[in-house]
């Protein structure tokens, strides 16, 4: 909350009559250049921006929540199909991706620290690492998606029940799990599993792409010292966003990849 001086001047507040350019200059001198004029103090501005980001993340929780609800219901109803579907995912790639993202959250957090402690080069390095790790994640996801396309496990695009009716036809997976063949009606329900898989990871990937785009912008600005002169709000709030995207992935990984993996 802003300073509560009774006269409520605030940093800029009491421009008594909106005139006098010299007055404005003098007044501008005692507040940072990035302070927007509808705020009373830089503190208030940072506070508001941070609160706004948390709220936004809450809306994202509700957004993904709908998908998680659908997932929970259908997993409950069609558990064997979900198991079979989950076995088709490459848990090595999935685990790698999880570590990639967790590490990228670490580099992001380091970046925020660098910004707060005014380490411009450190910030650029951390942001760049985060950016690369993000791209890594997307690269691995592309590999995984490609595998799924090849196996005809993409709903709506020549979806094939072969791997579920006859698990032996997919030797790699069969070696791991020795799945029993599913009955036809249960095999059909694997399409719902994969729909949710693509929806949830796809929605997550969209958020990653947006994040990576913003990171590119940030690296550019960070090199110019935009975030290491005391105005760290953007980096901090982006950090929140990035951590959120990471947490969503951890849930997705557990729910999609790790169904009944015990041997």
């Amino acid at each position, binding site marked *: *909350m*802003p300073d*509560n*001086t*009774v*006269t*409520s*001047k*605030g940093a800029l*507040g*009491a*421009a*008594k*009559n*909106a005139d006098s350019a010299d007055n404005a200059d003098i007044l501008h001198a005692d507040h940072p250049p990035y302070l*927007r*004029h*509808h*705020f*009373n103090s830089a503190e*208030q501005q940072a*506070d*508001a*921006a941070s*609160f*706004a980001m948390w*709220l*936004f993340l*809450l*809306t*994202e929780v*509700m*957004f*993904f*929540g*709908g*998908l998680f*609800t*659908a997932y929970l*219901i*259908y997993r409950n*109803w*069609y558990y064997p*199909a979900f198991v079979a579907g989950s076995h088709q995912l490459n848990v090595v790639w999935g685990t790698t991706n999880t570590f990639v993202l967790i590490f990228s959250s670490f580099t992001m957090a380091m970046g925020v620290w660098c910004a707060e402690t005014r380490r411009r080069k450190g910030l650029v390095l951390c942001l760049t690492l985060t950016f690369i790790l993000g791209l890594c994640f997307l690269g691995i996801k592309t590999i995984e998606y490609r595998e799924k396309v090849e196996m005809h496990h993409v*709903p*709506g*695009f020549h979806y094939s029940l072969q791997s579920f009716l006859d698990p032996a036809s997919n030797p790699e997976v069969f070696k791991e799990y020795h799945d029993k063949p599913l009955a036809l*009606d249960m095999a*059909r*329900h694997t*399409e*719902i599993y994969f*729909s*949710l898989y693509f*929806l949830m990871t796809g*929605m997550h990937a969209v958020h990653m792409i947006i994040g990576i785009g913003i990171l590119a912008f940030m690296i550019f600005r960070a090199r110019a010292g935009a975030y290491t002169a005391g105005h760290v709000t953007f980096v901090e709030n982006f950090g929140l966003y990035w951590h959120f995207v990471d947490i969503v992935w951890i849930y997705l990984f557990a729910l999609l990849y790790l169904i009944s993996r015990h041997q």
Partner: protein
Amino acid sequence: MSTNTIISLPDQTTARIPKDNFITRENGLLSWLLTGDHKRIAILYLISITFFFFIGGALAGLIRLELLTPQTDLMATDTYNKVFTMHGIIMIFFFLVPSVPATLGNFFIPMMIGAKDLALPKINLLSWYLYMAGGILAVYTMASGGVDTGWTFTTPLSTHYVNTNVLTTGLAVFIAGFSSILTGLNFIVTIHKMRAPGMTWFRLPLFIWAHYAASILMVLATPVVAIAIVLVALERTFGIGVFDPTKGGDPLLFQHLFWFYSHPAVYIMILPGMGVISEVISTFSRKRIFGYTAVAFSSVAIAVFGFFVWAHHMFIMGISNYAVLVFSLLTMLVAVPSAIKIFNWTFTLYKGSITFETPMLYAFGFLGLFTIGGMTGVFLGSSGTDIHLTETYFIVAHFHFVMVGGMLMAFLAGIHFWWPKITGRMYPEKISQFAAVVTFIGFNLTFFPQFILGVLGMPRRYASYPPEFQVLNVFSTAGATILGVGYLMPVLYLIWSLKYGAIAGNNPWQATGLEWQTQSPPLTENFAVMPVMDHEAYDYEWLEQQQQAHKETEAPHAG
């Protein structure tokens, strides 16, 4: 007349609109289209909302015209289906949801809390552009074939059984949803972080409490309908099967996801209107709202309970009897805060000093019509009677009573109440009172017969109906014509008043809000001196002291 009104205008021979105000500060189209000023954005919204309202209204006119006769003779059945679908979509997403928040909320929330702007002005502008994008897409879709799924997009009809523009309409609604989320987000941050010194939560005008509650709903519920629309789009395009029983999916899942938003949506629509009513009733009875705390908490209670009642739209859809019990009980609970508010507003009149200017007339209309609408909601919330009444014209009448008789009346009350503050000019009082009465009569004639039609069993969304229902339908259409006139009049005289209306001065209503303690139209930065809140909300004694002090110093108007 002079003792029967509280209007207090400056001397018209010397009064002028203040030279420096938010309208004159900058010129040119771009200064409006790229503005960060919440007041300019509010005006942008006002113009666009009015535009969409009249499109939705024209569609309503077409519906009523078709229903004059029992046969489908005015247009093809497919066309009729498109007309009522688009009427619903445009009215709900492009008029009702943004109406009060995006216009009056945007304009007055910062002023009422003593701030210079909303917390996130650029996000505010983005909100408007998203709204326009969605709206234009919706109208374009309408013009290029329309959509005929009903505004409820029921699956599997919308996913597999229509070949109209479901995807583009879904996209339009999706975009508009983001506009709504960003507005709500902005309001919550602003109300939390930008209140003037001394402005504690319980000194806030009830308009703010109402918008705060509505914003919580906007922020938390809208994303769920966004994902529901995405799922429909994907099922329609790729046949993913989440709602398709032949693939193991469940069409009822869509119903749950859809109504999880669409029920809170109705509270998003009505709460801001209730906020307006609080301001109007207080001002025109010169009294603090009776039971301020109760009304404030009721707003929040409506928002919270509103999240837990969605399946009352699904009572006969085959959900378990026990689920029905739970949702019916919760629906009864959510009705109570609204009742509390009605009684608090009524008792605000007790020992007040009441005048009947146009905003107050609309507020009275609200009190009566929202009571009826709300009570009929209870008819529907009781699971037994819902069986007979659901999916009939009773539902149509119920929601039009609360939305049009309630919300739209509140919107008009607010527009008239704050018109002098926004424009610096008064609207013509006599003709506007006349328009209010015409609207009230037209409304009742249009929608009351529909309650009877519903009890008689006439289904909704029917282009043709058994002949014995015709008389009531004719009454309804006749009322709709009158209602249309009642809505057209304000547009005309309000535009007239921009040039010829009396100069309003700072506080023509002698109201207590912070927004009335500054010039009309306001400065871009809202206040010349940022206010400090050292009195309670609706403090008419404080106001009197201010007016005394002012009289003594005889300060001239600024500018």
